């Protein structure tokens, strides 16, 4: 297939060369000077007018358009930059406000907490005092009770002993002799009971 195309090409190129030579023999219209002056005249006329119109009217307008677009874009970029800076300062302000309010809130919170702690402490002190009083009172009572206890026990012991003796031996025993024995016993065992 490729070979075929190649052969065709060679064939065609022969044709082309032949045709070209045929044209050569016919002469190139370009080398016929009949219309040279006319062509020069019209070329100078059309190109001259086009050059004048382009250079005086159209090209300055295009360059003007390009310049104005460039400057407008620059202006817009500047404006955008300015707005960005504005928003940045606003953001900073906002951050500061937030920070300030945060510290304020913190301070308020701390104040409230201190107050609450103070209140609690005061109340606790009062309560502690009351409790201490109560405890002291109770201790006093206990002390009183404890102080009274040996005497009462002794009395009970004497009475019980005398009744026991009366029941057991049916004789009246002198209370004073019993009390003497009880005293003696209690004095001997008192350490065991009261840890004195």
């Amino acid at each position, binding site marked *: 297939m490729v070979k075929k195309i190649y052969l*065709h090409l060679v064939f065609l190129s022969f044709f082309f060369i032949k045709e070209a030579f*045929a*044209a050569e023999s016919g002469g190139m219209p370009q080398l016929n000077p009949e219309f040279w002056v006319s062509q020069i005249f019209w070329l100078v006329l*059309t*190109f001259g007018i086009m*050059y004048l119109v*382009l*250079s005086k009217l159209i090209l300055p*307008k*295009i360059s003007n358009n390009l310049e104005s677009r460039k400057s407008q874009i620059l202006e817009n970029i500047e404006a955008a930059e300015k707005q960005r800076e504005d928003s940045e300062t606003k953001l900073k302000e906002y951050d500061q406000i937030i920070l300030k309010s945060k510290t304020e809130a913190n301070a308020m919170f701390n104040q409230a907490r201190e107050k609450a702690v103070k209140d609690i402490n005061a109340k606790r002190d009062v309560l502690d005092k009351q409790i201490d009083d109560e405890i002291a009172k109770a201790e006093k009572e206990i002390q009183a009770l404890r102080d009274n206890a040996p005497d009462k026990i002794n009395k009970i012991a004497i009475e019980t002993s005398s009744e026991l003796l009366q029941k057991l031996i049916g004789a009246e025993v002198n209370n004073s002799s019993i009390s003497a024995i009880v005293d003696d016993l209690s004095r001997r065992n008192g350490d065991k009971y009261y840890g004195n």
Partner: protein
Amino acid sequence: MAANPMSQFDVYRIGPEIKVGAFDISFTNASLFMIISTVSILLIFNLGSKKNSILPNKIQLLAELSYTFVAKMISDTAGSKAKPYFAFIFSLFMFVLFCNMFGMIPYTFTVTSHIIVTFVLAAFIFIGVTVIGFIKHGFGYLKLFVPSGVPAVLLPLIVVIEIISYLSRPISLSVRLFANMMAGHTMMKVFGGFVISLGIVGGWLPLSFSVALTGLEILVAFLQAYVFAILTCIYLNDALNLHH
């Protein structure tokens, strides 16, 4: 017209014969396409510069892209000193580009396929650049022909070569554009002729060739306009900045 591939380059009179003295300045098909090209350029760029919106529409974008394209081309090759010549190079580029592109439409005439047109443009550029060079640098512009760092023995030869190459600039500039245009259009015509002569059986190959060539020729049309403009810039750069 169909048989001869060169007949597409024929210039013929449209309307009456106009003579000024001994010169024939009749309106021809070449004049017609010069007017069509310039009028389309002016229309497009006028439309493209009319409204100035921040978000350009399509035609404004086209005009502004062309403007920045040419401006960048000039500042890259010739520097900032070439700014006063921007309008001329812009016009030159657009004129050659539009003439080339209009030539790509079937049954049209390609203005730039005529050596006289391209030669007038190139000669004007050559003379203009030389005049600018002498105005800017006086006779110091002749230093262009004496490259620095060349051994003294070789200098006479080098200077001669430099002068010849300088003088051949308008010829090379004009012949490059004219020959490219003519060769491309001739080739397309020849292949078009093959399509007819080989008929329904064998015509497909030259037809596909024609299609491919059309794409190539559109590329060449743009490229030659670009080359023409950029060589002008390079010559201008020599005249303005004198690097040698």
